[in-house]
């Protein structure tokens, strides 16, 4: 009687990056349980983790070449949509992941936190992010949100010796749960308003139907914006950011700042670009307000901060504002700008956090500006790199930061968002102030009785070295010859 259940076809290639990461994560957990506490387990897990990321990256590379030129793969009942947009941000996520892993190696050893679960959680979180980048259904977005967030709650609280770490985990968790409940309610309202949770389904429905009662849908859109705004740390959903960035172990912070933002914006851009393009005149002003608030609050609040990690946290709020400018434009140029920004930002922020990871003394607790006083004088290379990264974040020319900001601003100019453009450029000036403050502190002489900056730092471990070199190289190359990268970002802007 009943028709048989027809399972959806699965395009394994399309989901293999996620599978690679998740499999590596699960494999690590298995290794942990099999090998128990043997010394080999941590290096082995590191290798497995990195191999997983590399494998995922290889698949992404293949997918990129397959899909470039406005092609997309839809699979598993339309829940997964692999397109250049998703692949691009997936690559950003993977880059952030591998760099965070590399940074973690020496960090965990120094802090005595070596545990295979750490790698597993990062991989699983990254898997969630990859799911997010290719999600074509609100419920997938929601689940991906949880998959990427829950490991982050744990990772934030991973340093059991520091109460601040646990506090960060706690705060992140409470607020994350709250915001994901709000997001889920948004999903529910949208479902009710359109009868589906599929992004393309919503778009199709809205294109064919004129809603007389738009209330449920608009409420849903608003609440979706809240949930994703929380993830990308847009004001006023940003307040967790400084505390969590400061309290979390620094490599985790770097992972969070780069990868979570990429994933969050992937969902934001895809949901609003694919599902609600017809409602752009409704949500664009709202995003405009979020962008302005993020720009102003992020950059202004950072001015008087005294903790370097906190400054960078506020700056990441400001950066969210800049990316929101590109998103708000809702044009191909705007998306291109946002994508390029996320790409560059990953290197700039991970580079900065890499230096902080290296320079922090054991305990990962000394990040006040006073602890960094004289760093650039006494360790010119390490200190100089941090100066370089903060200047890049400030948007100094010949760095990727400048090109990214330029692209974002041009998107605003093209979209005739002049007020946003001017607020953006002025915010970047305010931003320059606190970036310079970091630079200034590191360049001013340390009082004789103060402890040596950089603490135990004698030699940069090779893994962190690789990360630093890669970040510097990419930021400079994007800044000087941006053509190729902009081209990639442009290829990735295609959504439907």
């Amino acid at each position, binding site marked *: 009687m009943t028709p048989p259940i027809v399972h959806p076809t699965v395009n394994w290639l399309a989901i293999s990056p996620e599978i690679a990461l998740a499999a590596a994560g699960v494999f690590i957990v298995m290794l942990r349980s099999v090998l128990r506490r043997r010394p080999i387990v941590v290096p082995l897990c590191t290798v497995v983790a990195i191999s997983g990321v590399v494998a995922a990256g290889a698949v992404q590379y293949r997918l990129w070449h397959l899909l470039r030129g406005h092609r997309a793969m839809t699979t598993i009942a339309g829940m997964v949509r692999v397109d250049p947009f998703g692949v691009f941000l997936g690559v950003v996520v993977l880059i952030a992941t591998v760099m965070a892993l590399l940074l973690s190696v020496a960090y965990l050893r120094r802090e005595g936190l070596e545990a295979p679960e750490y790698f597993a959680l990062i991989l699983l979180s990254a898997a969630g992010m990859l799911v997010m980048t290719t999600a074509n259904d609100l419920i997938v977005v929601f689940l991906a949100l949880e998959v990427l967030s829950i490991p982050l709650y744990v990772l934030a609280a991973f340093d059991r010796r520091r109460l601040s770490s646990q506090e960060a985990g706690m705060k992140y968790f409470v607020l994350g749960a*709250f915001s994901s409940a709000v997001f889920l309610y948004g999903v529910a309202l949208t*479902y009710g308003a359109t009868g589906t949770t599929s992004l393309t389904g919503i778009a199709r429905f809205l294109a064919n139907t004129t809603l007389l009662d738009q209330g449920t849908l608009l409420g849903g859109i608003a609440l979706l914006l809240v949930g994703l705004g929380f993830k990308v740390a847009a004001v006023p959903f940003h307040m967790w950011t400084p505390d969590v960035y400061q309290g979390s172990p620094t490599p985790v912070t770097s992972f969070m700042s780069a990868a979570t933002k990429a994933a969050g914006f992937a969902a934001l851009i895809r949901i609003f670009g694919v599902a609600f393009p017809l409602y752009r005149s409704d949500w664009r002003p709202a995003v405009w307000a979020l962008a302005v608030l993020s720009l102003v609050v992020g950059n202004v609040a950072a001015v008087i*901060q005294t903790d370097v990690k906190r400054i960078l946290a506020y700056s990441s709020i400001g950066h969210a504002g800049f990316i929101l400018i590109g998103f708000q434009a809702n044009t191909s140029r705007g998306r291109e700008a946002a994508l390029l920004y996320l790409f560059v930002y990953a290197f700039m922020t991970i580079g900065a956090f890499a230096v902080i990871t290296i320079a922090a003394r054991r305990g990962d607790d000394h990040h006040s500006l006073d602890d960094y006083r004289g760093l650039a004088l006494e360790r010119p290379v390490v200190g100089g790199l941090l100066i370089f990264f903060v200047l890049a974040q400030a948007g100094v020319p010949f760095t990727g930061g400048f090109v990214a900001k330029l692209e974002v601003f041009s998107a605003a100019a093209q979209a005739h968002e002049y007020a946003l453009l001017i607020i953006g450029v002025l915010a970047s000036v305010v931003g320059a102030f606190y970036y310079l403050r970091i630079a200034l502190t590191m360049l001013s002489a340390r009082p004789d009785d103060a402890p040596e900056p950089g603490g135990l730092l004698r030699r940069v471990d090779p893994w962190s070295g690789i990360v630093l070199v890669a970040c510097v190289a990419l930021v400079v190359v994007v800044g000087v010859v941006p053509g190729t990268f902009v081209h990639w970002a442009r290829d990735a802007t295609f959504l439907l």
Partner: protein
Amino acid sequence: MIGAFTITSSYYLVLAAALFGIGAVGLLVRRNVLVMFMCVELMLNAVNLTFVAFAKALNDAAGQVLVFFTLVVAAAEVAVGLAIIVAIFRRRRAATADDLRSLEG
């Protein structure tokens, strides 16, 4: 008389919205982290009720399927959240949210 008065899905949806509101307010006003988690559960339940009501209204089984995902997420969140509380509690004998404010500014 009663027969003329039917309960449409809107009633359930309003009820769910109210429940969501109670959960949200509870999260804001309670200091005990465990109770805050319970409030999150209230909110998630409100969403579940919404899903089910919409499933009914739209005659769509998918709405009920979504509840399962919510359930799983709720379970996972509670597991991790309670673990965090336990971990913190081992360090400090305090379970109110207001006690954790070493990170500020």
